[in-house]
């Protein structure tokens, strides 16, 4: 077969694939939504909604954190919420890939969070959450995908930043917002933890991707310069913990019902310092 015929066949196949594409594998080629547009929308939302401050009367608190719940199935997320509520967690953080983008999955997730849960929760957006125009559902239910919250104890306050890396990049507007937040406010807080869905470092071979090296270099520089203690991510589905400089980078296990090693993270503040431990679900 001649080279030109091969190229022509591939182009025809590609066009038919893209046009008839029901699955969101089209996102490999087609630029569906821009991270900067989502961030602008989120920052506009933030302008009318105050960032949450969680108050605790004690010098000890715990955040319960998961990633990649991929709701459809709800067994593991219900178990997680039961543990969090039963163990007096101050709040929960859901580090992206909450579902697979379908409206009915978002509805199921919202129902579970409203009925099985009485403590504050902070959702992040992952790449799967953006499938099938999922951003509309995320924004409708949860609002902003870029924000921070703080936890105030009697002695001081800790900063927790939630970032949007659903598109494989945080985007220029979000990175400027993040850098500005650290530059103007980091010194007012005791500890600083960053949550973002896409893990930065490629510790094992998978088909899923991480941010480009230019962006990883920026994140490393900001983490070191502004003393970020933890960067907590998901996306890879397998727990990993590495330390670069003074920053601990944690990649969480997937919590989805089909995950063999489902677990969640407890981030514990006690006696002036942060620590963590993994709690297996199964």
């Amino acid at each position: 077969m001649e080279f030109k015929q091969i190229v022509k066949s591939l182009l025809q196949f590609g066009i038919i694939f893209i046009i008839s594409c029901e699955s969101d594998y089209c996102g490999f080629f087609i630029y569906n939504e821009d991270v900067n547009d989502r961030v602008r929308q989120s920052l506009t939302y933030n302008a009318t909604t105050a960032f949450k401050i969680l108050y605790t009367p004690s010098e000890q608190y715990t955040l319960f954190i998961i990633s990649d719940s991929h709701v459809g199935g709800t067994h593991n997320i219900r178990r997680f919420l039961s543990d969090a509520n039963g163990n007096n967690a101050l709040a929960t953080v859901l580090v992206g890939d909450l579902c697979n983008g379908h409206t009915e999955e978002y509805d199921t997730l919202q129902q579970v969070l409203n009925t099985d849960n009485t403590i504050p929760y902070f959702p992040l957006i992952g790449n799967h959450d953006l499938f099938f125009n999922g951003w509309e559902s995320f924004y409708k239910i949860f609002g902003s995908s870029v924000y921070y919250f703080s936890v105030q104890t009697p002695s001081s306050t800790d900063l927790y930043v939630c970032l949007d890396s659903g598109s494989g990049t945080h985007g220029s507007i979000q990175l400027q917002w993040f850098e500005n937040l650290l530059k103007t406010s980091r010194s007012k807080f005791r500890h600083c933890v960053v949550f973002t869905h896409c893990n930065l470092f490629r510790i094992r071979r998978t088909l899923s991707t991480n941010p480009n090296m230019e962006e990883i270099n920026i994140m490393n520089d900001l983490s070191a310069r502004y003393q970020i203690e933890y960067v907590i991510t998901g996306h890879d589905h397998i727990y990993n913990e590495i330390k670069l400089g003074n920053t601990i980078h944690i990649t969480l296990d997937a919590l989805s019902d089909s995950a063999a090693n489902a677990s969640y993270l407890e981030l514990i503040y006690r006696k002036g310092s942060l620590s963590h431990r993994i709690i297996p679900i199964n």
Partner: protein
Amino acid sequence: MRIIFIISNISCFFSFTNLVSAQNSLNLSSEFGETQASFGNTIKMAVDFQYDLGNFNIKTGLQADIKDYLYNTLSAYTAQISHSLKINRFNFNANVFYLHSAKGQLFNEYNYGFSFSSLNTAHFDWEFGTHFRIISPSRYGVNTFQLSRNSVYENWNFIYVIKYRLKPVQNCWNLSFCMTNRDLFYINQETNPYCYLGSTFRISSRLSSFTEVWYKPAGMSNFRVNYFGYLIRTGIKWNLSKL
């Protein structure tokens, strides 16, 4: 260490130019670009020497920042040794390389790897290999920001270059399209390819110009592709072998 490396590069260049059998070339380039993570434009200059000695090819290069958010005067240097091989009628190069990259002042990146690449092909160039990356705090990061000496290791990163040249390489002008995750001073993770359109034009028997326009996507393998950035590089290649 860096100064020793630079001096040895310059010494090698002057000593090798005197060898009758050597074929040497010097590339000078400048690049201008912007990405979602660059906090504005970046401008860099680079020089690389290439010299052939029989079946061996040695390439060394230096990159300097003119403007970059993570500014470093000497932001990268690299060295590569290639050896041409022949198995049956199949000609190719075996390469080993080292790349040191210093993006900003707080971290250093050490890259080393090996690859196999095409040799004397009419239209298609390719390169496939693997690389190992170590990211470590720099001495400045340790002393100024009290960074602990904890490093990150990324192993067996697949590197690839797939390039199509419109005309044979001897043609006085050429156009090319390339998809790759590596550049002379930069290696991306295997699931993040970039692509570029390139052109070359032979100005004289010893001088040719080249231009590359790079497109950088993000999130492709997450099925959530997003524009990340672009780069325009232009330069000249000076063939020194006919002195």
